[in-house]
């Protein structure tokens, strides 16, 4: 049936039209849509309708900005009106006091609000999201009241007689003129927002929203990214504010209340969080609905409230929800021979290694050669309350080996991993990687030093496709800057393409290229573990820590895992493994460390550890432990 349809002329035309749409750059699509909307409104030719449309466009700009903060980065902001206010006041003061042209004030309004975002965001973004909500709310109120009390800015009366914008000598003073300007600004806001969304920044934001801890552990600098989101959101708000000031002609603090922040939040949730067309639709509804309800005068807010609550019940995902699916992620990417692929990966990795050697040599440091210590843990102690989870553990992992850590549940193995990867700060002890201490560094810094990891309970980004998960792992290796991402420059495009290509190689390496477009949660347990391995490898680490990779795998899958671990080692990557499957550990490991109750009780090659009386007594010899060892320990 579908095949018939595709063969028919109509189907072909539909397919080619869709193809054409997909190939049209986003900016062109935005311009076309906005131009059509603009012509429709202007063609209607009613001043009232046009002015409502201008308001809707202003709210659209605000919504696009807040969408970056709430929709992309997942930070709840209840004081967004503050940025609107700062933008409006900056622009209005420059126009009335310094007699600047509106268009000249725009960059300053945007810059000022961005700075305000940075000042507020830097100390507060470490807070949990609910706390951030009240902090932003407080910031919004403080800003409004400060303007209210600031005499230079007119105090409660605000700023009056703000001039209309002047474009190359033309005075813009009709509603239609404003509508044109607002559409132009809206187009800029939309195109930039979309570019950000589809850049590595956007991917990092989604990863943080999905699982901040996992994102940080695979190399995404979560704090910096959150700050970026905050600053960018502020800049969009500043743009909208400046426009608002010149359009209204007089601003005062009552235009920037908590209610406005809430209205913008309602707008983006109504439209569909994270979805750009949704934001526009939300803006039209939030601005248009009260106008339509105008005949009910007194009850219109009541009706609005009821409709809002009903809407949330019926469609909590919004009117035009965001879709993140790409069934053929590598469509259009040049094919590579599968034989060449592993060779390419090996070559890429060697390039990385050489680069590192050069970097270290330039800094006057030695790089661990094959068989020399790569990771040194000395006297590691970690305590939780009265419990000594890790008690004076020392060991050395040599470059190029497969090193395993075994021990009964609660022996402290994962805690050692968490200390190495910077998730926890050990109470005492030193951890040297490549001869340099990594204690106290943030997890993403340790990733960029060359340590990758997987998690005991799988921590993939659940609502991202498999290939996107791996692309997040490539985050530390991007070279593009934020402004490049915003403008979608050729350099940024090349970098993105390279990332996609590499993600594909790694998926091929772990044997998952076929399912690259699926959501991570749709895969089997074993495959999810392999995605995690691919994500950890993507940053080209020198050391990977696998926390129970075989848990939940069947014997065939375990066999494949052994092969995979060996191939990883053959790339020159050192592997540290925690697992409860003795046959797997004994088969694959060069050396084994045995932990029991936080202490290291044996260390050596498999045969030696198996014979060690202490190990047999504490661990292998006890029947009930054998049983518990065989069980996968999921989260």
């Amino acid at each position, binding site marked *: 049936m579908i095949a018939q349809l595709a063969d028919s002329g109509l189907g072909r035309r539909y397919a080619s039209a869709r193809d054409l749409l997909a190939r049209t750059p986003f900016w062109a699509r935005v311009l076309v849509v906005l131009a059509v909307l603009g012509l429709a409104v202007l063609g209607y030719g009613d001043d009232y309708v046009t002015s409502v449309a201008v308001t809707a466009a202003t709210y659209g700009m605000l919504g696009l900005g807040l969408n970056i903060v709430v929709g992309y980065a997942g930070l709840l902001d209840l004081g967004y009106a503050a940025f609107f206010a700062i933008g409006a006041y900056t622009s209005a003061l420059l126009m009335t006091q310094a007699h600047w042209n509106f268009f000249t004030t725009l960059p300053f309004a945007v810059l000022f609000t961005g700075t305000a975002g940075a000042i507020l965001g830097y100390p507060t973004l470490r807070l949990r999201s609910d706390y951030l909500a*009240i902090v932003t709310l407080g910031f919004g*109120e*403080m800003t409004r009241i400060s303007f209210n009390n600031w005499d230079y800015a007119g105090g409660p009366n605000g700023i009056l007689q703000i001039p209309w914008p002047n474009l190359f000598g033309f005075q813009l003073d009709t509603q239609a003129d404003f509508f044109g300007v607002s559409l132009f600004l809206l187009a800029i806001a939309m195109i930039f927002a979309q570019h950000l969304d589809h850049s590595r920044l956007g991917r990092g934001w989604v990863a943080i929203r999905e699982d901040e801890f996992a994102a940080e552990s695979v190399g995404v600098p979560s704090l910096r990214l959150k700050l970026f989101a905050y600053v960018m959101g502020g800049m969009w708000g500043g743009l909208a504010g400046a426009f608002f000031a010149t359009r209204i002609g007089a601003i005062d603090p009552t235009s920037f209340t908590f209610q406005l922040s809430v209205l913008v939040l309602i707008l983006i949730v109504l439209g569909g969080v994270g979805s750009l067309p949704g934001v526009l639709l939300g803006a039209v509804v939030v601005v248009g609905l009260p106008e339509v309800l105008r005949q009910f005068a007194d009850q219109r807010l009541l009706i609005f409230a009821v409709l809002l609550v009903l809407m*949330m019940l019926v469609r909590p995902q919004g009117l035009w929800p965001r879709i993140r699916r790409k069934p053929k992620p590598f469509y259009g990417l040049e094919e590579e021979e599968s034989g060449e692929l592993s060779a390419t990966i090996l070559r890429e990795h060697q390039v990385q290694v050489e680069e590192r050697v050069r970097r270290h040599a330039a800094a006057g440091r030695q790089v661990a050669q094959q068989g020399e210590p790569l990771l040194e843990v000395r006297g590691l102690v970690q305590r939780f309350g009265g419990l000594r989870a890790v008690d004076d553990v020392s060991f050395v992992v040599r470059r190029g080996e497969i090193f395993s850590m075994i021990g009964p549940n609660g022996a402290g193995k994962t805690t050692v991993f968490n200390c190495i990867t910077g998730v926890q700060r050990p109470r005492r002890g030193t951890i040297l990687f490549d001869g340099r201490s990594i204690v106290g560094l943030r997890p993403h810094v340790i990733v960029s030093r060359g340590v990758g990891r997987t998690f005991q309970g799988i921590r993939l980004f659940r609502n991202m496709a498999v290939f996107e998960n791996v692309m997040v792992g490539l985050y530390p290796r991007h070279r593009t800057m934020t402004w490049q991402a915003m403008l979608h420059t050729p350099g940024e495009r090349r970098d993105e393409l390279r990332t996609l290509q590499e993600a594909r190689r790694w998926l091929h390496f772990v044997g998952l290229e076929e399912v690259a477009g699926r959501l991570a949660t749709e895969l089997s347990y074993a495959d999810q573990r392999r995605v995690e391995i691919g994500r950890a490898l993507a940053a080209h680490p020198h050391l990977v820590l696998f926390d129970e990779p075989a848990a939940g795998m069947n014997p065939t899958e375990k066999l494949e895992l052994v092969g995979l671990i060996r191939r990883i080692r053959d790339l020159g990557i050192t592997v540290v493994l925690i697992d409860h499957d003795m046959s797997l550990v004994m088969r694959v490991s060069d050396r084994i460390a045995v932990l029991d109750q936080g202490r290291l009780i044996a260390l050596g090659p498999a045969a030696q550890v198996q014979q060690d009386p202490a190990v047999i007594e504490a661990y292998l010899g006890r029947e009930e432990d054998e049983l518990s060892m065989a069980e996968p320990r999921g989260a």
Partner: protein
Amino acid sequence: MGPFFQYTVIGLTVGSFYALVALGYTIVYGIIRLINFAQGDLSMVGAFLGWTLLVSLGFQHLPLYVALIAAFVIPMLGTAVVNLGILQFAYRPLLRRSLLAILITALGMSLFLQNLAELIWGPAINAYPPSLLPASGFFVGPVHLTYVQIALVLVSLLLMGGLLLFVQRTTVGTAMRALAVDHDAARLMGINVDAVIRLAFVLGAVLAAASGVMLGVYYVQIQFTMGFLLGLRAFTAAVLGGIGNIPGAMAGGMLIGLLEAYTTGYLSGKWEDVIVFGVLITVLVVKPTGLFGERVAERM
């Protein structure tokens, strides 16, 4: 030093209202992780129900104790019914789905309650009977204490103490605390999760109604918009004390009340919010879990 103690008395009185509403925020948040923005408006509903009883239905002419008890208990019940209705129709279908959607619903409910109240009781300011309680008081040194202040603070302390005992000492209270830690584990232990959530909403509403009636008695004037500022302050108080923490909410409320009184007294009323929020942000930056909040361990 005279004004200082006077401001302290005012601050503690107002702070006890905030504390009561903050407790509602904290209890509901602790259990379903929802910032129930309608909390302040529930207070407003309570205040208007009290006003209806006392003025419209003429309870003010009954003997003082009967009038007072009725004016507290009936609004408490009424507000509890309202809050349960909100839970049932607006929040419950969204629980375990999207936190953002519930939050928006909560904001929508706040808007709804305000506009409904405006529709029922009108936009004008309504006045509580001024002669309900004796306006007189006495001096302790230079500090003037009114009987109203003492009565209100005592009532709120009584309510807070009762709540604390209930949560710490009863089986149901233990169930609430268990639920705050882990819903699934609590369910597996045989706790009726839905019933406990309903209980949390009832408790939140009862405390909010109490504070609403007290506000009416204290300030005399009530209006349909009064819930917003009250809710905002109370929410701030709950976070300041560490949201989810019951003694924290009480202390937070008192602190906000004091801060407000000192700012108004020594500086100027127009900087009140700036100071309150400035202190809040500073505290959170220094101690991200609030003054009394405990560090929540993240599961690895």
